[in-house]
């Protein structure tokens, strides 16, 4: 589990990358199902803002991996750099989630000297012809395919003998934030992440640099596994890309500049907007014994093999029931006209961490759905999210967001609003804790912490507190939902 200490120390982008890796590595999804969120301890430093995703902003963001890799299709070579030795140049994931490409032509021949980032060959995927450039400076030793061949992603295209001068001495520095540099050529001026001293590289930070930093920090345990998980957009591991990076590299402590691109760049904008909204936070603990029992009952009486029962649909439905009584929690605020629109539909957004990043698809019209229907829809969205196949409709139109950070850990946090929504709810892991009974005896109870972030221009503490009490009551006494059964 990633501790809160790490959030404070690392840059945002790097944090997110760790999160994605963790998710893809974790073998048994927590009780609280897929939705995951980043959380910070209440005492987190100001340099580590708790970011959140705007559902609307997701249209502007692309969820491709390898944001660190500025160079187009710079292929993923072995992270470790043995000088004078043969390295493999594999076909990197082109970001389309496809398994193979056709090799169209080579730009080099065996024996040619190549520069770093020089185009080696052209391949065709479904949609595009793409030039693959060399990760290193070296000499082409072998070309393993001929034009017309179909190459699987991860297969070695060519072998290169790496030149001595191209060894990027990886240097790191322990620092608090990642800052966006004003030009590509600036390096060594801002701190935060691994940097290379080599002028030719334009201060590029390559994926391996970041992952090595993570290993060094003890954040990621298994370097080769995480590299595999990272290399593909999908969950299937990329072949032939195992790295022995863990042991053999040195670093000195220097600044490294990481330009924020794509996903993070957009996040800078959305978070800046969200941070302008005056937030307040309300926290509570909910006893989940009845919830646990109910879920077990659903599971035991489950006749359909496709359906997997978890806590989340129950929480979602009871949230919707509470929203009926407190519609202000499910509204949108227009600051120009000073109007609050109480939304008729409960489109509850669920934060999900996928290999491609964070997405917040929403389940539409929860007020009209049964718990079983919610379960199926949630499952559908999770599948689409992990395949990076969510469409605009799935991620737009949310009216309130639920974030289940319990899958990763943490108890309390300060999530930022998903504008233009006015509230966001983060739920922690259900934990068994001792509780005092009235007679002075101790009994075990399942407790879940809840943290509601709200827009203080629209909501006040009393409204949020009452809303939370209502929701809590429905969770602790789920039989009350029967009162509303039609």
């Amino acid at each position, binding site marked *: 589990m990633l501790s809160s200490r790490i959030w404070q120390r690392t840059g945002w982008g790097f944090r997110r990358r760790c999160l994605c890796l963790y998710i893809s590595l974790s073998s048994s999804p927590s009780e609280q199902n897929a939705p995951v969120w980043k959380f910070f301890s209440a005492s987190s430093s100001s340099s580590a803002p708790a970011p959140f995703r705007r559902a609307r902003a997701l249209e502007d963001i*692309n969820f491709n991996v*390898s944001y660190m890799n500025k160079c187009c299709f710079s292929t993923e070579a072995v992270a470790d750099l043995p000088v004078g030795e043969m390295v493999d140049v594999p076909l990197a994931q082109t*970001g389309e989630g496809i398994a193979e490409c056709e090799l169209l032509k080579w730009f080099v021949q065996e024996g040619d000297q190549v520069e770093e980032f020089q185009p080696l060959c052209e391949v065709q995927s479904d*949609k595009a*012809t793409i*030039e693959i450039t060399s990760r290193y400076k070296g000499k082409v030793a072998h070309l393993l395919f001929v034009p017309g061949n179909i190459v699987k992603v991860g297969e070695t295209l060519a072998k290169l003998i790496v030149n001595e001068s191209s060894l990027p001495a990886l240097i790191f520095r322990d620092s608090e934030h990642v800052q966006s540099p004003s030009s590509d050529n600036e390096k060594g001026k801002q701190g935060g992440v691994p940097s290379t001293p080599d002028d030719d590289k334009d201060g590029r930070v390559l994926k391996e640099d970041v992952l090595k930093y993570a290993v060094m920090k003890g954040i990621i345990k298994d370097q080769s596994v995480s590299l595999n998980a990272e290399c593909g957009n999908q969950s299937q591991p990329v072949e032939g890309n195992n790295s022995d990076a863990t042991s053999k590299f040195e670093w000195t402590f220097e600044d490294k500049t990481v330009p924020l691109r794509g996903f993070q760049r957009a996040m800078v904008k959305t978070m800046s907007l969200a941070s302008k909204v005056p937030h307040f936070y309300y926290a509570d603990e909910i006893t989940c014994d009845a919830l646990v029992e109910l879920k077990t009952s659903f599971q035991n009486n489950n006749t359909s093999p496709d359906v997997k029962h978890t806590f989340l649909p129950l929480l979602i439905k009871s949230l919707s029931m509470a929203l009926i009584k407190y519609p202000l929690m499910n509204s949108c605020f227009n600051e120009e006209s000073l109007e609050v629109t109480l939304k008729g539909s409960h489109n509850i957004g669920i934060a999900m961490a996928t290999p491609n990043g964070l997405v917040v698809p929403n389940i539409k019209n929860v007020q009209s759905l049964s718990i079983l229907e919610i379960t199926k829809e949630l499952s559908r969205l999770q599948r689409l999210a992990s395949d990076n196949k969510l469409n605009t409709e799935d991620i737009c139109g949310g009216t309130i967001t639920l974030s289940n950070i319990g899958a990763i850990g943490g108890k309390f946090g300060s999530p930022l609003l998903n504008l233009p929504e006015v509230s966001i709810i983060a739920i922690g892991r259900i934990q068994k804790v001792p509780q005092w009974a009235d007679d002075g005896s101790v009994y075990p109870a399942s407790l879940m912490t809840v943290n509601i972030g709200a827009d203080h221009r629209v909501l006040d503490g009393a409204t949020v507190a009452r809303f939370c009490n209502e929701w809590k009551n429905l969770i602790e006494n789920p039989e009350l939902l029967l009162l509303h059964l039609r």
Partner: protein
Amino acid sequence: MALVGKAREAGIPLMKLIRLKGVPILEQLHLEERLLRTSSDNWCLINDGTNSPAIVMGLSGKLSELVEVRSVLQDQVPVIRRFSGGGTVIVDQGTIFVTLICNKEAVPDIQPFPPSIMSWSGQLYSEVFEGIGDFQLRENDYVFGDRKFGGNAQSIIKHRWVHHTSLLWDYEVKNMAYLKLPAKAPNYRLARGHNDFVCRMKEFLPRYEFVERTIKAIRSRFSLEPVADNIADIDVPSATHFAPSTRLLTDHDMREVCAASL
């Protein structure tokens, strides 16, 4: 120069706009390839219809699997293999072409990967079609609802990429008959034939309005500098050794394919 200065100050990249009408698609593709590989500027090319019908295939793809070769040979429909990836289309006067050739730094917010570029283009076209029909980028196609009216293809090189689109403002049913149902079809197609799968943009908005809206949407992201209205006026850096890879398939090529499939 002043324009460059102002655009740079504003932080928006410059883009040169070429507006063409009825230019043969082969010429257009040759120009695009030349601009991609030899120029370092950003370009937007709009060709409002091409002069005569032609079939345009992606860089790789088996002719016999994508096209009804015999009918095409019989009716003498030209078949072109273009330099970018993607599928097969048949284009004519009813097709509107929109091409964007960009330096990677010109659009730094996106990664130079096909899905990022496509998604970026999806947003651009969402602006173009705002309030008109149920536009979305679905899998890799531009659709109204579940009917496709435009596809796109790309070519990504070291520092630049091209994204070009052919949009069906109108089409002739008989022309669609030259294309086979491709083996690789998007999920949402659900085995529909061409006529149930595609739709015409003209049912949604007038032709000139589409072009104007597109230019407006591009203008919100780039500082557009119109440079030419016809191909002859375009001042392209003439790289001495540039030879386009887009080519017209000869009758001989086609007959070979026919013979092989017998």
